[in-house]
């Protein structure tokens, strides 16, 4: 709105817009350049991290394939893409002979400090969770992070029962975290004394993910079949 002849102190707008435009264009180019330059390495890193996490929860696995469960029905190969909205990501892990060794999926629940994200391995033959790993957490060092090291807590996940009910609509028994020392059933998780909230987050993360994924996945397990 300013004029060069105007006596007021109004500033010419055009040079301001021009400067911001030029600076933004240069910055845009730098960002795109950096993105393209690091894309491959970042993808490889993410793939490696996922593989490491899966191999930890399904120890007999040799290769993994990423899948999405889309709209709660279809199973589609992931091929390294980001999960579309509403899709659940999981990994099918195959052993050396190319046979399906297990399924790894991620669950998340609110812990003491922040969301605790856990990866768990599901073994179809026993219909149970046979291993867990922590993907990320910010729990109190020395207290909440015992979920990584406490051997009696980790023993809960040698064979945690996640059988489905008869009409395959949900888990037969909800995975429940119980007070330290009161575990009676194979679908219960014995909490760590003093770290109950973090233990509960692990249990809830597994339960929520299993309730969503397994009823849809188990009837289609044959489709994942073998690989080789």
């Amino acid at each position, binding site marked *: 709105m300013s004029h060069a002849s105007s006596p007021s102190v109004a*500033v010419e707008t055009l*040079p*301001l817009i021009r*400067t*911001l435009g030029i*600076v*933004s264009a*240069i*910055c845009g180019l*730098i*960002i795109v350049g*950096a*993105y393209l*330059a*690091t894309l491959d*390495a*970042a993808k490889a*890193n*993410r793939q*490696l*991290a996922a593989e490491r996490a899966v191999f930890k929860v399904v120890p007999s696995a040799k290769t993994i394939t990423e899948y999405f469960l889309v709209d709660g029905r279809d199973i589609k190969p992931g091929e390294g893409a980001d999960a579309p909205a509403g899709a659940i990501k999981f990994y099918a892990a195959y052993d050396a002979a190319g046979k399906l060794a297990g399924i790894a999926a991620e669950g998340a629940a609110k812990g003491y400090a922040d969301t605790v994200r856990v990866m768990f391995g599901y073994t179809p033959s026993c219909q149970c969770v046979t291993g867990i790993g922590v993907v*990320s957490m*910010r729990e*109190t*060092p*020395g*207290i909440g992070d015992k979920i990584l090291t406490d051997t009696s807590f980790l023993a809960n996940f040698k064979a945690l029962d996640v059988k489905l009910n008869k009409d395959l609509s949900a888990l037969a028994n909800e995975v429940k975290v119980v007070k330290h020392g009161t575990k009676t059933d194979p679908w219960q998780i014995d909490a760590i004394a003093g770290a109950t909230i973090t233990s509960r987050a692990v249990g809830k993360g597994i339960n929520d993910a299993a309730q969503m994924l397994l009823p849809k996945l188990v009837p289609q397990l044959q489709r994942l079949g073998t690989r080789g």
Partner: protein
Amino acid sequence: MENKPGEGCETGGCHSAAVPIKVVALTPQTPSNWMEFAEGLWERNPVFVMVLGMCPTLAVTVSAINSISMGLATTFVLAASCWLISLMRHMIPKEVRIATYIVIIATFVTVVDYAIQAISLDLYEALGAYIQLIVANCLVLGRAEAHAARTAPMAATMNATGMGLGFTLGLFMIGGVREILGSGTFFDIHLFGSNFQPWVVMVLPPGGFFVMGGWLLLFAIIRKRKEKAALAATEMEVQHGA
């Protein structure tokens, strides 16, 4: 604390709690590039003297490696953005200078963010949101506004690199102590036997304040002693003279 724009801090507004600083930048003759570089390393150390950028200083210094990574990331952002700002200092109208600085700083923060994802995902997880928050670090905008905007590119880059390395040193001095006491390790190497009971509080948020306070206390004591010695020396001279 770190969100304050730099102007007030640079002119002395926000280091009342810290060691008083000598006003070096106001000397009439242009300082050499080496002087520019050395200024931030110790004499005006961003962490212990200027006490800028406290948010990452207290938050990510739970281990030595985190501290160094965070410091180097900040150094890169500082040096690159000060260089570009200094290069463009004559064409940036003063009405939009802060907006321009923020765009430039945010660009290099994004570059660092991508680079760390490509280097190590574990490190990226450990540093978390503090990488993105470099853009809000008082130190970066402060150097851009108070120094790079009125200095030639070479001197501005040297000064920014020195400041960044000084910041890294400060972070490392805090992070190293916190890791040794809080986890019993240094760069993940176990220092003590299995009987060592880590002081968990040191890797929790209060530990950051304890160690920071401890260092500031130590520097304050040393400074007081030096002042006392200097005072005694002058008194002696006066007595001898009389």
